[in-house]
């Protein structure tokens, strides 16, 4: 797996998110209240809303367009809604954040 550095943990506010622009589209990187980091495509399965702009609560984010709640852990829509977002591998070494786009670019290429 190839890891790409994207920045520092503290670039993202707690209970917040930032975007990373990649050739395969925008990636949303989330930081929860207890400093867990998640990444996924910045694209709600419902209407493509930018999840990075949503309110982060626990390990979930609420899409700003129509309030779908997406689990940050597995990308699945929660509650009665059905759908899923492609999650993206992310790791934190010290305070430096890395993501891997292998899966993403692989799928797009296929």
């Amino acid at each position: 797996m190839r890891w790409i550095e994207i920045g520092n943990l503290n670039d993202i506010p707690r209970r917040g998110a930032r975007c990373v622009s990649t050739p395969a589209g925008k990636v949303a990187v989330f930081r929860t209240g207890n400093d867990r980091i998640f990444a996924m495509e910045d694209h709600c399965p419902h209407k493509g809303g930018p999840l990075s702009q949503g309110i982060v609560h626990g390990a979930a984010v609420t899409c700003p367009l129509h309030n779908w709640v997406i689990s940050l852990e597995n990308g699945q829509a929660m509650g009665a809604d059905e759908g899923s977002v492609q999650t993206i591998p992310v790791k934190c070494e010290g305070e430096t954040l890395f993501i891997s786009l292998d899966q993403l670019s692989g799928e797009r290429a296929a």
Partner: protein
Amino acid sequence: MNGNGNNEMKEKLIIVGNGMAPGRMLEHLFEHAPDRYQVTIFNAEPRVNYDRIMLSPVLSGEKAFEEIVIHGDGWYIDHGITLYKGHKIVEIDREAKTVRSDHGVAESYDKLVIATGSVPFILPVPGNDMPGVLTYRDLDDVDAMILAAQSHAKAVVIGGGLLGLEAAAGLQLRGMDVTVLHLMPTLMERQLDPAAGYLLQRALEERGIKVKTKAETKAIIGKGKAEAVELADGSTIDADLVVMAAGIRPNAWLAKQAGLEMGRGIVVDHGMRTEDPDILAIGECAEVGGHTYGLVAPLYEMAKVAAAQLAGDTETAFVHSDTPTKLKVTGIDLFSIGDFADGDDREEIVLRDATAGVYKRLILKDNRIIGSVLYGETADGAWFNDLKKREVDVSEMRDTLIFGQAYQGSAPLDPMAAVAALPDDAEICGCNGVCKGKITGAIGSEGLKTLDHVRAHTKASASCGSCTGLVEQLIAATLGDAYKPNEIQPVCGCTELGHDEVRRLIKAKGLRTIPEVMQELEWKTSCGCAKCRPALNYYLVCDWPDEYADDYQSRFINERVHANIQKDGTYSVVPRMWGGVTNADQLRTIADVVDKYDIPTVKVTGGQRIDMLGIKKEDLPSVWGDLGKAGFVSGHAYAKGLRTVKTCVGTDWCRFGTQDSTGLGIRIEKFMWGSWTPAKVKMAVSGCPRNCAEATCKDVGVICTEAGFEIHFAGAAGLDIKGTEVLGHVETEDEAVEHIVALVQMYREQGHYLERIYKWVKRVGLDEVRQQIMEDHDKRIAFFDRFVFSQKFAQCDPWSERVSGKDKHEFKPMATLELEAAE
């Protein structure tokens, strides 16, 4: 994901058609045999599966297409289904077991399901293929009708059956002048007897829809496009749009071409199998036991049977049952079931109430109900249907039968008891075939507590929605005291407390941060949710204006970045124009900004402002920077806060003006801008009772008179429409400002988050507000002072703060990865 992995091991299932029947069939199939098939669907329509029976509300504008989608794209992906959108199958090769689409795609199958539905019956008259002649079958038809309706011209609907009348009502609501032509003497003659058909006709005519019965269409005439319909009696009716809704026919040509046995539709046995053991047919194209079907309940029954077949269960069989008919036209209640033709061996019971517009008729044979027609009052439909289905001998209750279930037995039953008295197998939701036992069972086993829960788990009342009342009564009857639709609603799932209690406890316990509130009030989640966090943030901002540090991560995106998010993720920007007044410099600046940032849409809003739409998030700070140089500040068009004060020109220009309404509006806006409120606050000041600023539908409005200022409040012109109430009359402009500010502060302190002023007033009472603001001088001054104190911290322009670098992380990507980096 089922789609990945051992696909070679799976049998190949191909479905031709992607309507409601195959959609439901797959839901059942995935439940019973999730891994047995690799599924491929060919859909001639270029879209996913949607609720076709809800097209009428889409046509009338009561629903959007998005709301009637049954399976979104995600569902197909999750189940590993290959969906060919816009592919029509043109050939089945039964020898080779392959199908071929019009785009040349060929696939082989182990099992094939034909679900090609129906096609509208096109009258064989001259001109039937002219532009302007439509059918009513799918979303494309609806879109075409909505487009045609924009001209507000004349429409003729041919066919006074279920579909035709729903189309007529929808077009009429869209503003068209509609005439319905019906061949038979009364409307919906297959479902209604002449008396009910007459009542229906009268109800439609009262709405302004013209109805012409015994009208035989001879030709559609016009030059190059439809202009009129000519009838057999020689008369013509002008028509810019002609909708053919004269019936449907099974769409069976594909099966016919494949050499399968044909009746009216594709002949199948009670297991939905055609004569070819590997081919099934379901839906409107199928003919079983000599019947074809057009209503959703039997089609869903077919779906269930076919799913069982495909899962290896050959026992489950389709059983014919009558389906009640309901017309989905808002405000017209109509129900019919069974057989209601006259006959020597039949008796009938009829109840008419001309003033109330009620007509009920029961048809009995051997003391058993065999048919029923209800018009105007249909609550007992389910009960009559149940008596019919169970073939109950009604001789004991014959005298009171027609009055309904409430009049049976010694004491009249209330509706709740009536529901409780239904047997478990009584059908509650006709569309989805959900019986009472399934709902009560799910309530028990899943611990369901609300209507939404029941809809999500059982699908009862989730399609046409006409049984919603019945489902609610059933929930109430099942849960007893545990069901409290009117009890205090908790703020959200994170707490049991309601908004009032949370607000009271924040003050009483002196809670000053969100974590403190959650800790002290025993929140059930560690960091709340998207419902409670913005509410708590507002309550704390309101209650501790000097101490509380606003938590931007608990604000909705619009308030976090001070612009309005749009459906494509771009933003719109509305600068403040005090009182709606602008000048050449401001307009020039706006024009320059629009050019510089290539802003695609500029629009004037309802609140007398200019809205620039489609701005990229990264551009926001520099857009604001450029606007700021001309003196513009944020217009707070994104805020749960003071939005706009709309004004007319008043004594400055108007020959009728009685006061300086523009000046007062600007003064109020300059005094109150920047304040956060439970929900948005829109105001207006009109310079005379002609009310050109439309102040009487605003949250707060002022009507100027010669004698002073009449203060209005609690209006609404959105989801609800409501004229304002009069708060009171004051003589001077200073007093007007003082009263308005005090009123808004009272609302700020008492309103529930997202509760508009009119809803808050409804909750606390008009007189209470009038008493505290108009009569209690000390209270009013105290409210006023608290607002003024709060404004000290609220009135800083968020745009210039961000131009200066605040929250800059919000507007830039964290990183931008180039192509090389990802390779």
